[in-house]
């Protein structure tokens, strides 16, 4: 495992207390008892990994906590982090039939966390599966242990892919360019939802399952690819998205401009402990909200979220928007940045203009210039693909910066390359990456089995 660690910082823990604290044991049973145990449950159908939600919830009710956790892990090896980061309002909890009876939906995420916390405390590992998908040693018609797969990137897609391969006997190696595994789970999720340390704990479970990790590996040349191809049967691409897009305005290189993912990674790894003064975040997606909230909690007096369109156009989920309002983030609608420059006192002057929306077009309103003095400018307007690497991949097709891969199998145009997660879907949630990575693992096992019989 990586020797890198994240220092425990009491100040960080205090400023980023969990927004959803865990259930007590009895509260969990009471909540689990409320679940109706629907047939072919809508919550399960809504989950990209199709966790058997009533199944794991009723196991909590009977006190079968290990069974509950295994049920979750069977479907979603990152059940612990998904319990904390999933936007459940638009997934399982949003689909709960209780809504239609004017009752509160079952708190599925908190129940899932309850089961996963207990499993983590037990120190156990998810059971191995045989080739038929049942628990037990890998055995059967063909020998899956001969299959070797490289998973590039140590984010959720690769972790899910590698874990699924391991559970079914294959050998999986995760290659990561950074010092720590977990991808956005470690570097990019707001700390009050998922602590970096918890993400690492989850990855540690996957390592103990027998997945190999190599850190500081940059796959950036033809020779690196050739080497991979000689060592592994398949290569899984779980590379995520590349750097954040730039604002494309003059002065963007100034000190004091830091993109949202950089800001989040810096505070989560202990490199940014304090923010003073005024912060302007540009953009209105979920990452922009995370960055704005983080700036508030790190000490910024005033945080503006500047968006060129209106409230009804924002990309963030409703509950994230509401959360930001509670954190004291102020919103500046229909305002566009024009330029930024440092002033004589080391601050930044951000020149902006009001725009009006005509159909989808944005037209500047004359004489509406306004300059905001700030200490930190945080662009957060989406991520651009890691195109450079992909161009080097033989035969893998890329469109609009996304790798083209079959949704059911993750298969790319090159039969030795599979892909899933943000680099394929353009940026969805952890649970989508897990689902894609798992499907790709099964597809690779299938392909290997077919090849073995050929």
């Amino acid at each position, binding site marked *: 495992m990586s020797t890198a660690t994240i220092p425990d910082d009491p100040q960080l823990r205090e400023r980023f207390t969990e927004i959803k604290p865990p259930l007590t044991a009895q509260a969990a*049973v*009471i909540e689990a*008892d*409320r679940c*109706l*145990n*629907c*047939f*072919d449950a*809508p919550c*399960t*159908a*809504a*989950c*990209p990994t*199709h966790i058997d939600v009533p199944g794991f919830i009723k196991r909590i*009710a009977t006190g079968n906590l290990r069974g509950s956790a295994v049920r979750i892990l069977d479907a979603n090896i990152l059940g612990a982090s998904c319990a904390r980061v*999933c*936007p459940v309002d*638009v*997934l399982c909890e949003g689909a709960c*039939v*209780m809504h*239609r*009876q004017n009752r509160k939906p079952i708190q599925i995420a908190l129940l899932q966390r309850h089961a996963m916390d207990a499993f983590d405390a037990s120190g156990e590992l998810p059971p191995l599966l045989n080739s038929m998908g049942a628990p037990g040693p890998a055995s059967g018609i063909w020998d899956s242990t001969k299959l070797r797969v490289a998973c590039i990137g140590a984010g959720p897609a690769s972790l899910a892919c590698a874990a699924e391969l391991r559970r079914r006997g294959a050998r999986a190696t995760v290659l990561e360019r950074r010092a720590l595994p977990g991808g956005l789970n470690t570097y990019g999720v707001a700390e009050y939802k998922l602590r970096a340390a918890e993400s690492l704990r989850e990855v540690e479970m996957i390592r103990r399952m027998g997945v190999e990790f190599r850190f500081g590996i940059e796959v950036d040349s033809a020779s690196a690819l050739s080497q991979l191809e000689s060592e592994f049967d398949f290569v899984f691409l779980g590379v995520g998205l590349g750097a954040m897009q730039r604002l494309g305005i003059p002065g963007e290189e100034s000190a004091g401009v830091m993109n949202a993912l950089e800001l989040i990674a810096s505070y989560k790894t202990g490199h940014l402990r304090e923010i003073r003064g005024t912060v302007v975040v540009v953009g209105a997606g979920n990452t922009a909200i995370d960055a704005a909230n983080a700036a508030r909690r790190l000490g910024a007096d005033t945080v503006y979220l500047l968006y060129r369109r209106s409230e009804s156009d924002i*990309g963030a989920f409703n509950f994230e928007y509401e959360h930001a309002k509670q954190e004291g983030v102020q919103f500046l609608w229909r305002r566009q940045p024009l330029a930024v420059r440092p002033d004589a006192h080391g601050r930044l002057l951000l020149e902006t203009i009001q725009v009006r929306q005509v159909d989808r077009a944005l037209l500047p309103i004359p004489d509406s210039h306004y300059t905001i003095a700030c200490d930190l400018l945080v662009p957060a307007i989406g991520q651009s693909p890691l195109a450079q690497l992909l161009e080097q991949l033989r035969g893998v097709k890329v469109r609009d910066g996304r790798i083209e891969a079959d*949704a*059911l199998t993750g298969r790319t145009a090159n039969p030795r390359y599979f892909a899933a997660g943000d680099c394929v*879907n353009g*940026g*969805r*949630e952890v*649970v*989508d990456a897990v*689902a894609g990575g798992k499907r790709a693992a099964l597809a690779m096992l299938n392909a290997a089995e077919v090849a073995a019989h050929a």
Partner: protein
Amino acid sequence: MPEPMPDLRVRNFAGAISSPNPFWLASAPPTNTGEMIARAFDAGWGGAVWKTIGEPITNVSSRYSSIDWMGDRMMGFNNIELISDRTVDENLREMAEVKKRYPHNAVIASLMVASNREAWHEIVTRAEDAGADGLELNFGCPHGMSERGMGSAVGQVPEYTELITSWVKEKARTPVLVKLTPNISDIRSVARAAKRGGADGLSAINTINSITGIDLDTFVPRPNVDGKSSHGGYCGPAVKPIALNMVQQIMADSEAALPLSGIGGIADWRDAAEFILLGCGTVQVCTAVMHYGYRIVEDMVEGLENWMRSKGFNSLDDFRGLSVQRVTEWKHLNLNYKIVARIDEQKCIGCDLCHIACWDGAHQCIHLDRVSGPVDGHIEQHAIPAAKEAESRASLAFTPVTRRERAVDPAEHGPYPTPLARIPRVDETECVGCNLCACVCPVDGCITMVRVDKGVAPETWDGRTKGAQCVTQPQNH
């Protein structure tokens, strides 16, 4: 002028016992002392059966255990406590004081002494001298006392019951109630014996022999007394159906029927109304009071009054026993009465529990085929539930991250609050009208059982096999 409230008074129950309402506390921990009973009367209880008086015993600890259900406590309750651990003198002195302070409330002395004539004669005289309005002979206690030849050891043998009842009747000046044990194959045999012995009334049922559960860490059943347990007496909401059945059996049997004080899982006015509908003159409550305190009687009184008012009943006699004759032997039921399930699409929340219950527990006639189109005919033409589940597990789902992805497609959703694909459909030609779907449906009034008149004359099994005419059941009380 508002209508007068109904009269809940009990007059001359079993000949001579009166109380302001039919709600009595059963002989049990809530009636352990005069101080407790005084507080109960202040709270509104109509009567109290004193915790059984006899030679003082020594109790163990612990004494109780319970069954919880889906997070609710004490669905069933169990005890291994014996009769009063206080002296006869102490109990009777307090009884006299209570009776003096509360002359209009019923105070019944529950008695249990060794099975000899003199002992019974003596205790009867002393209890009546203390002012008891009536006597309840405890022939029902299922634990501890029965090992000493008392309690259910008497109540399980009709001859003993008859004999001891007749001894008591030789002395008693107040009404004598015999409390029956359910731990017997036919409760009517003992009820008849009590009646032959001269009893003026009955109380039923006492607690049911039980082991409530076993601690899965220590393997000791509950309640745990230093590593061992003993079978106890089961009561609480769980036993109500058993009690109702026994009450009905007694009241429908002319050789057994006597004024009856109903006991068994009564926790609210609804339960009480049911016991009275089966012929009870009063009802006795214990577990619910042990759970929530004497205060529950307020809603029992008000609820019963309001229900009686809504039904036009002025007194308890107006509805007592109305349901006794509505219970009959199976062979007299109408084989040609047909009902089918109807699902209210506006109320359905799409849990689909009716579908799986019908497929795995009934007759495979509730289907999830509103979108795919109904497939009538033989059941095997439908996808089995496991296939349906496998299909949705194999489907692709993703997080809707944009507003457009989160929008609901009205065409796919259908006209009801729940997506059409999740609203089950009843195949009425296959539905046997068993009620299971209505039982499992979590939404009130969503599934109703509707009569489908086939225009066929009523026919019973009895009638069919004897070739006789069907006996039409009374349609009105």
